C-alpha cells in the first residue's frame, strides 16, 4: 500500500478539470498505453495567459493527482510563468509523492512541456526552426531519452540509477540501459564540476579559512577541541588540532571524516588535510 498524502488522495478521488477543450490553443501528450500511463493536456491561451486547462489521464492514483493539480497550478498564470514549472513543483504541491511514483510528476511536466512546445510552434513559425538536438533514446522499453534523464537529474539532484528509474522509469523493465544511465549521471556531475566557477588563489584561501572558522571549528569546540589553519600549499591544507583534539586517538578520524570531507564538499574535491605539530 502506498503512503499517499491527503492531497494526492483528494485529487484522485475528485480530479479537477477533467476532459478536453475543443479548439484548444495547445495540446500536449506524454506516456503511452503500453507503458501503463499516459496523459493528454489541453490549454486555452489568451494574450499570453493560460485561461483554461483540462486533462485526460490513463494511469494510477498519483498520475491522476499530478495531472489534476497541474491544471490548477497553471490556470491564470502567464505562459512565461508556466514554463518555469518543474516536476518537483508538481510533487511539492501534492505534499510529496512516494519515490517510486515520482515518474508520475515527471509525466505531468513532460505533457506540459510538449503542449508549450506545440504552442510556440504554432505562434512563432520563425523561432521554430531553432535546432533541437536529435534526442537519443536511452531506455527502449519505456522510450526515455537522454534529455529527459538529464532534466530529471538537474531538477531533482538525482545521483543513483535507482533514483533515475523512480523518476523517469528508465531502466525499470529489462534493465539493459542501466550502464548507460550510470554514464549519464557521471557525465552530468563531471560537467557540473567543470562548470563550477574557478576561484582565484586568494579567494580560495579565504573560502577555506572561512569554512574552517564557521563550520568546522564550532563543531570541534562542542567536544572541547579546536582547529587552526597553518598553511595552504596547492591542494594540501595544513592544520593544527588543539584542546582535547590534540592527542585524541580518534583525531585522525576527525581529520579525514569531518574536516577533509567538509572542505572537499564545499571547496574542492582534491583537497587533502594534513595535521602538523
Amino acid at each position, binding site marked *: 500500500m502506498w503512503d499517499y498524502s491527503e492531497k494526492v488522495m483528494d485529487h484522485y478521488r475528485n480530479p479537477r478539470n477533467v476532459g478536453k477543450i475543443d479548439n484548444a490553443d495547445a495540446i500536449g501528450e506524454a506516456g503511452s498505453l503500453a507503458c501503463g500511463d499516459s*496523459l493528454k493536456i489541453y490549454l486555452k491561451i489568451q494574450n499570453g495567459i493560460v485561461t483554461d486547462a483540462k486533462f485526460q*489521464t490513463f494511469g494510477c492514483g498519483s498520475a491522476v493527482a499530478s495531472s489534476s493539480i497541474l491544471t490548477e497550478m497553471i490556470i491564470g498564470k502567464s505562459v512565461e510563468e508556466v514554463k518555469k514549472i518543474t516536476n518537483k513543483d508538481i510533487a511539492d504541491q501534492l505534499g510529496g509523492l512516494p519515490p517510486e511514483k515520482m515518474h508520475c510528476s515527471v509525466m505531468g511536466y513532460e505533457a506540459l512541456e510538449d503542449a508549450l512546445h506545440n504552442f510556440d510552434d504554432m505562434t512563432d513559425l520563425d523561432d521554430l526552426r531553432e535546432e533541437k538536438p536529435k534526442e537519443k533514446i536511452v531506455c527502449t522499453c519505456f522510450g526515455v531519452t537522454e534529455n529527459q534523464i538529464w532534466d530529471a537529474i538537474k531538477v531533482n539532484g538525482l545521483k543513483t540509477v535507482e533514483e533515475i528509474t523512480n523518476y523517469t522509469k528508465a531502466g525499470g523493465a529489462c534493465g539493459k540501459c542501466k550502464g548507460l544511465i550510470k554514464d549519464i549521471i557521471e557525465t552530468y556531475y563531471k560537467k557540473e564540476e567543470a562548470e563550477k566557477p574557478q576561484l582565484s588563489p586568494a579567494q580560495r584561501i579565504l573560502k577555506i579559512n572561512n569554512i574552517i572558522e564557521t563550520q568546522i571549528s564550532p563543531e570541534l569546540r562542542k567536544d572541547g577541541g579546536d582547529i587552526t589553519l597553518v598553511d595552504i600549499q596547492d591542494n594540501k591544507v595544513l592544520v593544527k588540532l588543539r584542546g582535547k583534539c590534540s592527542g585524541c586517538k580518534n583525531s585522525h578520524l576527525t581529520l579525514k571524516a569531518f574536516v577533509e570531507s567538509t572542505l572537499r564538499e564545499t571547496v574542492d574535491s582534491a583537497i587533502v588535510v594534513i595535521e602538523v605539530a
Partner: protein
Amino acid sequence: MSNLIYLDNNATTKVAAEVLDSMMPYFKEEYANPSSVYEFAKRSNHAVREARGVLKDFVNAANEKEIIFTSCGSESANMAIRGVLNMNKNKRHIITTKVEHPCVLNLYQTLEKEGYKVDYIGVNANGELDLAQLEQAINYDTALVSIMYANNETGVIFPIEKISEIIKSKNKETKFFVDAVQVAGKIPIDVQAAGIDLLGISGHKFHAPKGIGALYVNSKTLITPLIIGGHQERGKRAGTENVPYIAGLAKAAELAIDGLRAEATVVKRLRDKLESGILKNIYNARVNAGISNRVPNTTNIGFEYIEGELILLHMSDLGICASSGSACTSGSLEPSHVLRAMNVPFTAIHGSIRFSLSRYTTESEIDRVLEVMPGIINKITALSPYQDELANLKRLRG
C-alpha cells in the same frame, strides 16, 4: 472496518476461528518441547504427530514420513528445489514455466547465475501450458521439472497428472516439484494419483496463520536439508517444531477437506456470478483466461483503457479489497509477468483486477460489489484519454 469486503484470498486469508482455537492450548498450557522425554511433553508431541497424519491425508501421501513442516510456501519451494539439485549434482538442467510465482522464478534466476540451464515453458492466451514445448525440453540432463498446480493470478489449473506422465516417459530420473500453494483447500490434491515427487503448500492461503507451510517429499526422492541442526523432521528441517502453528495448519487442512465440496459449488457459483455480472454491466471488461478449468475462487478481469491501481484505490474507498496485475500497484514498473506471458493486450493488461473469494464470502458481498463496480469503472473511464477507442468498444460490445 465493519463493511469490509475481502476478495483477495489468493494473497492471504483470514484465520478461521476453529484454527485459532486449536492453536491456543499450545501457547498457554501445552508449551513443552515435543522432543522432551517427560510426560508433560506428550501432548505437544502428539499434536505434531497427529498433524502430520492430517497433512498426509490432505495430500493423500502414502506415509506420514513424507510430510515436512516448514515456515511458509517459499521455504517449501526453496527446500524442494535446492534439495533435489544438491542430490543430483551431475544434472544441470531445470524446466519450469514463465508464469510461476516470483518466489520460485527468482530462485531459478539465481540458479541460472550459478550455472544451471533453465527452460521456461510458455502459455497460450487462455493461460494453458504448452505441453509440447515441455515434452521437447526434457532430456537426459533434466534434474527437475517445477510447475505450479494452478496459477495464482488467473486461477488456471495445470494438468499435473498428464505432465507427470510426460516427464516420466521422457526421463524416469527427473523429479517433479509442484507448487500447490494456490490450490490447497480449493481442489482435492492426490500426490500419488498425480505422480508428484515433491509438493509445497502454505497455511495462510487456506485459513491457517502466516508462518506455517509444509512440503511433501515422496519416499523415493532424496533431498538435502536447507536448515541444518537438530534431528527434527527426520533431519530434513532442523529447528524446534512450531507446535501451535502445526496444530493450526492441521485444523485448517481438516476444515478444508470438509469444505472442498462447498468450494466447488457455493464459492464457484459466487465467483461465476461476480464474473458474469461484471461482464454484463461493464462494456470495457474482459475475462483474462475465461476457461472452465480454474480454481473455483479466482477470476481475473481486465478493464480496458484504464489503470488497475486507480480501480483498487476507488474500491478500497468502499471497503472492497482485491489486487491488480498493473505495474503501478507493485512498485515494479512492469505489469504482471503472467498476463504478459498470455499476451493479454496492452489495452487491458494494466487494468487487470484479480478477485479471489473464500468460503467466507457471502452472496450479499458479491451483490454489493456488482452494484458499485460499474460506477467506479465509469468514473475512471471518464478520465481516460482513449475516448474514441472506448466509444468503438462500446459500439462493438454494448
